[in-house]
């Protein structure tokens, strides 16, 4: 049970759930959360490979820390964009933001 495959499956499941969320949610906040899920799926992979395969046990952890930092920054930027969009459209529904339709 405590082997690499378990963690990889959990990571893949997290990533897939996130992907589905990004593609399916119409709520921008929901999409942002789904992106966080995808990032965490990747993080699980890094940690798992770090634990079971890496000769140097800290590399994966450092990368994971970086991803978390990036995710925080991304969330901040994403939220501010959403805020700006809300000021303009009075909505955070992605279906309302279709002005670039060809």
């Amino acid at each position: 049970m405590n082997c690499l495959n378990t963690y990889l499956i959990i990571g893949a499941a997290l990533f897939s759930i996130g992907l589905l969320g990004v593609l399916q949610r119409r709520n921008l906040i929901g999409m942002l959360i789904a992106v966080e899920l995808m990032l965490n799926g990747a993080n699980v992979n890094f940690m798992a490979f770090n634990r079971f395969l890496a000769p140097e046990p800290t590399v994966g952890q450092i990368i994971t820390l970086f991803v978390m930092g990036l995710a925080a920054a991304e969330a901040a930027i994403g939220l501010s964009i959403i805020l700006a969009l809300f000021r303009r459209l009075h909505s955070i529904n992605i279906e309302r933001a279709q002005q670039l339709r060809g």
Partner: protein
Amino acid sequence: MMSLFRDPILLAAALGTSLPFLSMAIILIFTRHNQRLSASISVGSVSTSVLCALYLLITLSHAGAPIQYEFPWLLADDIVIPFGYLLDPLSLLMLNIVAVISFLVQVYSIGYMAGDPGFSRYYAFQSLFAWAMMSMVIAPSMLQLFIFWELVGLASYLLIGYYYEKWSASQAGKKAFVMTRLGDIGFFLGLIILVLGFGDLSIVRMNEAGQAHNIPQYLLTISALLIFGGVMGKSAQFPLLTWLPDAMEGPTPVSALLHSATMVAAGVYMFGRIFPFYSMSPEAMGLALAIGTVTMLLSSTMAMATYDLKQVWAYSTVSQLGFMVMGLAAGGYFAGVFHLTTHAGFKALLFLCSGIFIHEYHTNDFRIIGRQGGRKLLIPMVCMTVGALALSGIFPFSGFFSKEAVLGVLANHPNKLWLFAGLLGALMTAYYTFRLIFFMLFPKSAGEVHGEHDSHGAGHGHDDHDKEHHGYIFWTMAVPVMILAAISCVLGFSQSSLEHFLLGQGTVPAQLAASHGTEAHAVAHEGHGIGHYALLLAAVTMAVGGILWAFFEFGRKRATQEGFLRLFPKVEQLFAARWYMDAFLRRFLDDVIYSGFTNLFTRNDRRIIDGGIDGICFFTIGSGRLLSFLQSGMLQYNLLVMIAAVGVVVLYLLLA
């Protein structure tokens, strides 16, 4: 650069030819509003040119070989096209003709153009012409010659259209420009073919190679024929001759300088310049002979049917140019160039005299000038008669000698047809010249008819009452005219020294001088044998016959002054309409060029080129429309496509 100042010959050549350019620039930029200063600058520069030209002529008259200064200008592979100066007898002679006549005409113009609002502009263009023409004359390569040839054409265009507010003048300028350009296309093509085939445009080397058979015969013939196109345009030979009579719209001194004495002779000069090259192509020489003959006869007939003073001289210029081309094409290098020289003198004289009459009576119709007492202007009338006698070829005047020389060459040609054409031309020339002179000397409606005179008609003892109120204006015009008349009287006697000067040395190799010069020499000059005297007699008979004929119809007391052409109205109409050449050209332009080629090209442009570009545009727009359907505006669809694409790439990488 240092050698420029060490070598007086080079300095004189450079100074003489480039000062007029400087004067043009100064006049156009600085002194346009000061008419006196502009004229002084221009006349000053051209008189310096005269001094330089005379100095060169005197210094180099005994130089053995032609002097050539060149520096490479265009370099491409092994083709070198130089710029510089070529000083040989022919270019020195022509340089002097151009400089002297330019000078006289510019002095004359001080009086003729006095009070004209465009006075400074006129002198700027005159300087432009002097610069271009003199630089053309001493060009050592055909390309330099061509460049200045075109600049001369520009000066001609500007001066014909000098009275640009007059519709006919601006039209005539355009016509002259376009028609001469038509010939120049041939000229330029000929040069290109020569560069491609032979690789050198230096006049000296072209002539040497032509003589030594170093140029393939077909190449020589093609390029000679094409280059002759330039002669046809510039010297108003047969198909392209109608621009010259129209060019008389310009001021009269311009007609004297450009359109009779010097510029239109540039074609003949160029022919003489590469004469050794030409003479190696019998086809080109034959064509030139035929075209010269046709031109001479056609324009002589045209001159019989006009009553415009300047038009008569214009047609006569065309006819005499044809005569020069005949002389050259029949192999008489010296005869053609000699006729060019004398013609420059007496034709400038005739035009300048006409200018005085036109200035005085404000009309170009010589019947009206005659009736209003034109003969009372003693100086121009006498000088014009001198010019007319020279043009007709009467003994002591210059035209006699040069016409004899050309006819002598024609007599040596195996085909006697050309000789008869030449004699017929001489008859017609004398006839139309003295038709004009008698109209002016013996006006009928004036009532009083003077006693019988000999054909000179110069002896009227009228006092010049006009002189006083003309003042300096009259004299600035009269003095150049008198100088030219004196030149026309004495120039003929310099024939043997000129012949020695031209043939004894220089760019015409000795064997050419031997093959072409000597028969002409023997017959026309030295006068051995019966044939020469018969020819002399025939020529003089023709000239005197023409004068007597004109006298019978226009001069004698009971003359009707109508002319034999009145009996054939159709023929007169034909002559007056220039053999319908203009009408033909108009039809040709309308039917072939405009509705044929131009129409075709317009359609090609509209349908194929415009249509093609429009098609490309419509395709782009349409495909853009199609592609824009993909842009739904939904962020998540885009994301889906992106992820799918990444998935496909991953699959590909995994499977590959």
